[in-house]
């Protein structure tokens, strides 16, 4: 059975992290791995719900701001990894839940200030993006924030490297975002494209709903991406190579029509509109 490059990479990271934990060695992350957190509000930070523990980066980064964090995952290995990682963050109040589905959860609706959907999860693969959003957005308080890390439906690289199951479950079309969020009473704060890859360590967060930002990135900033250290190039060989091609192609061809095929994923941040009823 063909397993995607990206999943292999995630597995390898998980194996290494777990090995370190077994030897009681503290794991270390790149300082930049959670810089998306600056895009979230840092006031009214009481409770957060995270779908998908991943390697623990998201809940641990949120623990700097949120007093109580509930984390759900269907993988017991990832849950135990997070538990052991929180040992090194004694002030973090993180509760974990092993759940295979997001459909029936032990939480009241509108009970979290932040709900974070981490693309690195394997919940309910049969759910459409609409149904998935409907389920998770239910837990967001009025004026609370929904943050979803999703793959780009059109992304060529993900179509090559991910299995079709994951493409259907955790991906979205850019033009879908706004209407989808409006449907569930959210107003968009921003849609970011973390580059070179949303699952790696982003070197840029480009607000994709603003074409001026994207053009500026390609015209002026992209050259910085090519000037990274050889160590970083080696760590992200695949993403680096692919991003280099994106930049070259986008400089030659009209941007609007093709860019959607080259962005690996999005981070969508939206605020729930207060519902007086």
């Amino acid at each position, binding site marked *: 059975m063909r397993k995607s490059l990206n999943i292999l990479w995630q597995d390898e990271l998980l194996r290494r992290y777990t090995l370190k934990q077994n030897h009681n*060695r*503290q*794991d*270390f*992350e*790149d*300082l*930049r*791995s959670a*810089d998306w957190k*600056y*895009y*979230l*509000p*840092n*006031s009214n930070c009481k409770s957060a719900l995270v779908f998908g523990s991943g390697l623990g980066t998201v809940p*641990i980064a949120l623990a700097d701001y949120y007093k109580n964090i509930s984390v759900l995952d269907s993988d017991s290995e990832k849950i135990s990894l997070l538990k052991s990682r929180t040992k*090194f*963050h004694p002030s973090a109040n993180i509760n974990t839940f092993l759940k295979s589905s997001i459909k029936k959860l032990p939480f009241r609706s509108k009970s979290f200030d932040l709900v974070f959907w981490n693309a690195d999860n394997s919940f309910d693969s049969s759910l459409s993006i609409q149904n998935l959003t409907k389920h998770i957005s239910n837990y967001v308080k009025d004026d609370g924030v929904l943050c979803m890390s999703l793959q780009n439906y059109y992304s060529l690289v993900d179509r090559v490297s991910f299995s079709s199951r994951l493409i259907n479950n955790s991906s979205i079309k850019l033009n879908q975002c706004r209407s989808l969020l409006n449907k569930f009473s959210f107003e968009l*704060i*921003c849609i*970011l494209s973390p580059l070179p890859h949303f699952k790696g*360590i*982003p*070197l*840029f*967060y*480009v*607000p994709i*709903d*603003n074409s*001026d*930002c994207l*053009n*500026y*990135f390609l015209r*002026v*900033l992209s*050259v*910085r991406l*090519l*000037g*990274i*250290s*050889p*160590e*970083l190039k*080696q*760590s992200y060989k695949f993403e680096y190579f692919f991003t280099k091609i994106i930049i070259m192609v986008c400089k030659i061809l009209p941007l609007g029509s093709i860019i959607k095929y080259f962005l690996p994923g999005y981070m969508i941040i939206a*605020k729930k509109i207060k519902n007086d009823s």
Partner: protein
Amino acid sequence: MIPEIKNFLLINWKKIVPDYPVPSDISFLGIPGAGEGGTVTFLLFIDSKNYPLFAIKVYRDNYFPNRAKTEAVILKRLESIPIIASNVPRLIYKSLFGKNRILIQSILDGQAMTITIGKYNLPPSKIVKHHFELVTNWLIELGQQTRHYNLNENYFYSIINNAKRIFKFSEKEQFFLIEIENNLKNIVSYGSVIEHGDFCRQNILLMDDINNPKINIIDWSDSKIDGIPISDLLIFLTTYLLKLRKKTGVAGLIETFELTFFQSNPFSTNVWKAINNYIKNFKILKSDLPFLLGVIFLNQACYEYSKLKYASLQGTLPGFTLSLVESENDSVEDAIKRIPWYYFFQSLVKQYNKDFFFSKNKNA
């Protein structure tokens, strides 16, 4: 934090940016930058403008609170020097948001200084010469405009003693440290200048107008009011080729350092021309140059170590250090001591002989 900053800006827009009408929307393009830099920059776009209006620099944490304060003071100071002011960001606003200090700065024009590797694994001499001349002349101007005599021998002793506490030195290196101490009187006599602290290509924006080529300098997070003269030039020359090297890890760092300073090639010729030009202007004795370089490398190494030590206590490290943990099979405690500047110091001592420095400086 961004939603709060956005609200704050919209409410206070007329006070902060009086030249522009209040925008209907604001977007923020995030640039995490190098991990060890300790800052994240957000470029701010308003309405349908196709260039950013200004940059918001967020200091990741409050462990080095003086960094933000010093940067603000230095930018204000540079703003008052007409010949320098247009080449550095203008400080628009500073504030504290939650735990994070932020500085709002103007945007400078120009493209990042890029270079490619050509024949014999070296960059094209013509471009190198052009870059080096622009940089050296600008640094000479900065030095002349900001020179003071505020450093004393104790400052240099503290660098050396701090380095001794952190790093291990061979017998030859210890002897070299004694030589530095013996020459401190001269080193102190060269005074102090405002130092950028991270004067590498990525922070230099090139405005290549044929009639009036110039450079703009961004990211003053590591700047110092009383820096050591020639420090910025040395950082620039040492790091010029570092990111283009093919070989990774410590071996790659040392190889590039030796190619830059100690091997005979067209690139190192340009390097020494730039150094000679600088020391001539500041009347630095050629016999003091190795000790000045040594103490600058140690100062950089200690500063980097303090940042890495703090980051490691928070459970995070820059990508480069993490890659060393893997490639050199280190413990994290050892890896945070594997600082490029420490290796450059070792390499300097290894290559050090007085005749070499005199021959390289015969035209000074």
